[in-house]
């Protein structure tokens, strides 16, 4: 039984120059777990929109071809009808919750479908238990964290027991712990309930292990439709930016084994080639971060900074931190740990309730949503020519800022905050890689490296360990407003479960190796081709 069947679907958004999907044909069977891969603006979200009925019913535009979702013809059935069979989850948890309490939110789709009160009450209890959110049922949705909101939105999508679940980068705003929990939950739903999953995700290393199939979209066309190993082999030759670190590691070592979809398979491939490092004893207790002496080169000094809410908890609890010129620091920690608050204190947007913040020179802060900085009608009005040229955006000077791609908006916002003389001595970025594809992340890492070479200190708060490994010279871990670790990225990003790169997890934290390139250099210095040992 098919839950999604597309035949020659071509779709153009209203007013768009060209189609977002071109002659797409595919089938998804009941119980399949399918990952949609592709760079930004490749057409993934549009394809998900077709599966949920938002395309073309909500967005309008021109739709050619034939689409059937759970046996319903898309031309006759809009998203409201499809919602009985298709659950949908978007990126931003805040805009996906429409009711005041969690219970009302979970009941909402069922009430819309005319279920009776008893059926609604039972389904709400069941879905809450299945997702482990029963303790939240009476809570106000306004009080929930991002991770909790995303779980509630998933609960609302699942309450009617849909046959197909459509998810558009659901983990992009979640910390690694919440992200992994959500993916584990999807896997369970897929295995135990038989729900077909169609998931678009940039961080493929997090979800390929659970997938039955991967569909790569490029320029609105299906470029690859294969099992994870087949997709990774295709990515290596055609789209290296879609290759996962574990696959790059195994291929880079020349191990003749299928490309690994996850850590387990990668370890098996290394083991069979005799390259898996011996399991190291658990690390000796890491001493707590020591108080550093005041460095004369420091451009930022936080001295026992507290941020206490009126009649509430302490968001920052006595944090001391200094950043020196040229340093590239990454702040890690769960949602709500205090990372964003720390950056706001550094930029002077907040005043500590206790402690002291000293900044030498200008501090530029780029908050989570670059769109918040863009208030004019043309890109040229947002920043001067020199800044736009440096950001590579002068060609777009006459365009509307909201028409730029995500990566371009990020560059423009960075140009806006760092424009002017003197240049910022400290650049702070809050979650700059949300929703970015790997190429855009690499470009951002290169840009930040350039700025740090020119003398600026850079602090980035992120949930993305791969980006942290590529960018940072120092890593700081924050939990409950306290600084709990401060050291080299090799120490911090190699030994953990959640705040670790995929390569580090494959190698079990061996030698502080974080990236596939480092691992290849370390494990195969001779450059010999390795065959699996029988």
């Amino acid at each position, binding site marked *: 039984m098919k839950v999604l069947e597309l035949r020659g679907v071509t779709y153009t958004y209203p007013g768009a120059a060209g189609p977002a999907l071109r002659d797409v044909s595919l089938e998804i069977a009941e119980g399949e777990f399918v990952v949609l891969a592709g760079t930004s603006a490749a057409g993934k979200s549009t394809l998900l929109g077709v599966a949920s009925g938002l395309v073309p019913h909500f967005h309008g535009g021109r739709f050619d071809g034939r689409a059937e979702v759970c046996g319903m013809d898309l031309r006759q059935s809009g998203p409201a009808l499809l919602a009985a069979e298709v659950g949908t989850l978007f990126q931003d948890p*805040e*805009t996906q919750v*429409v009711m005041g309490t969690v219970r009302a939110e979970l009941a909402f789709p069922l009430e819309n479908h005319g279920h009776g009160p008893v059926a609604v009450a039972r389904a709400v209890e069941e879905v809450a238990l299945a997702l482990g959110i029963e303790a939240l049922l009476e809570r106000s949705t306004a009080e929930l964290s991002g991770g909790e909101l995303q779980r509630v939105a998933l609960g609302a999508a699942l309450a009617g027991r849909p046959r197909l679940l459509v998810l558009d980068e659901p983990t992009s705003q979640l910390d690694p712990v919440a992200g992994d929990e959500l993916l584990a939950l999807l896997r369970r739903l897929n295995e135990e309930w038989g729900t077909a999953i169609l998931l678009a995700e940039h961080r493929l290393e997090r979800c390929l292990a659970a997938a039955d199939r991967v569909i790569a979209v490029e320029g609105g066309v299906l470029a690859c439709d294969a099992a994870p190993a087949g997709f990774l082999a295709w990515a290596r030759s055609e789209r290296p930016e879609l290759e996962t670190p574990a696959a790059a590691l195994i291929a880079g070592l020349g191990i003749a084994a299928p490309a690994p979809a996850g850590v387990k398979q990668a370890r098996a491939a290394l083991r069979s080639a005799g390259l898996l490092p011996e399991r190291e004893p658990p690390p000796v207790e890491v001493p707590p971060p020591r108080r550093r002496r005041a460095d004369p080169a420091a451009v930022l000094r936080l001295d026992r900074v507290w941020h206490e809410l009126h009649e509430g908890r302490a968001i920052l609890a006595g944090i001391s931190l200094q950043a020196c010129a040229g340093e590239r620091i990454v702040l890690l920690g769960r949602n709500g740990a205090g990372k964003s608050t720390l950056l706001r204190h550094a930029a002077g947007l907040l005043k500590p309730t206790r402690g002291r913040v000293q900044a030498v020179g200008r501090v530029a802060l780029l908050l989570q949503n670059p769109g*918040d900085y863009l208030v004019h009608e043309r890109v040229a009005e947002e920043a001067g020519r020199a800044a736009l040229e440096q950001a590579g955006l002068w060609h777009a000077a006459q365009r509307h800022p909201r028409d730029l791609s995500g990566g371009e908006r990020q560059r423009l916002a960075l140009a806006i905050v760092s424009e002017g003389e003197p240049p910022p001595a400290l650049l702070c970025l809050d979650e700059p890689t949300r929703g970015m594809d790997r190429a855009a992340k690499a470009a951002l890492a290169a840009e930040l490296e350039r700025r740090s070479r020119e003398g600026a200190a850079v602090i980035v708060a992120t949930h993305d360990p791969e980006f942290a490994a590529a960018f940072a010279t120092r890593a700081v871990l924050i939990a409950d407003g306290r600084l709990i670790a401060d050291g080299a990225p090799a120490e911090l990003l190699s030994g953990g479960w959640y705040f670790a790169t995929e390569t580090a997890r494959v190698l079990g934290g061996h030698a502080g190796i974080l990236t596939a390139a480092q691992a290849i250099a370390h494990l195969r210095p001779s450059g010999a081709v390795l065959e699996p040992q029988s």
Partner: protein
Amino acid sequence: MTYLRRSTPLHAARSSAAIAWCAALVLAAFTTSNPLVVATLAIVVLIAGAAASVGRRVTRSLLLSLPMAVAIVVINALVAREGLTVVARLGNGGPFGQLDITAEALAFGGEFALVLIVVMEVAVLASAAIDPDEVLRSMRRVSFRSALTATVATRMVPLLALDSRRIGDAQRCRPKPGGRLAIVRAVTANALDRSLDVAATLEVRGYGGAQRPRRLARALSRHDIAFFCSAALLAALSLAWPASFSYYPTIEAGSAVHAIVLAGALALAALLPFTQRRGIER
């Protein structure tokens, strides 16, 4: 003016019972003209707020309404002409004529201000202690889409406030902040984007094909019964046994004993449901 979930009898009562009780308090304030009774009601609502664990909010509403109350007393004293007991002569007030302040006008203004204070206190207590989702759910049987639109609008208000704060912070980070007009434009554009996102969410949750929900048969809890009875008693007392008090042309107070007994009875009827603390979720 947002709902606060607390473990109190008022929160535990169904929304219809809580609304009926609040409406009865307002009715009592409007049907009596005796200042002693109205002042008692104002104090009763304060105590009820404390018993519902939202006392701070209700007290804040009282403090906020005080300037308005003073303004009402002053304006009424200046414009009312019906009183006979002059307490101050302010002379010729130009277009307003001779300005004589009478005791009757002051007393009537004071009583009206007290009624206003009671109404504001009750409104704040209701918004903090009655679950809006439940109210709207019960209203959905009458007009589904209107109730849902109200729900979504309620949800959008804090969301947009949060967005405005975020955009404001971003502007503070710019070396050259955008002009006021540009920021207003950005906030508006952002609100439209948000509305589109929420509209898309509503669609995929089946709103477009929404059907009228069926009635939920729910047994009355002890708190439902207590607040319904309290509301009925408040309404009966204030309608059937009002304490007489007239202001113009001279102040004529009815029986003081009657007023004291009525005030005591209203206070008892309003506050008794709060003594029942069984069956409240923690």
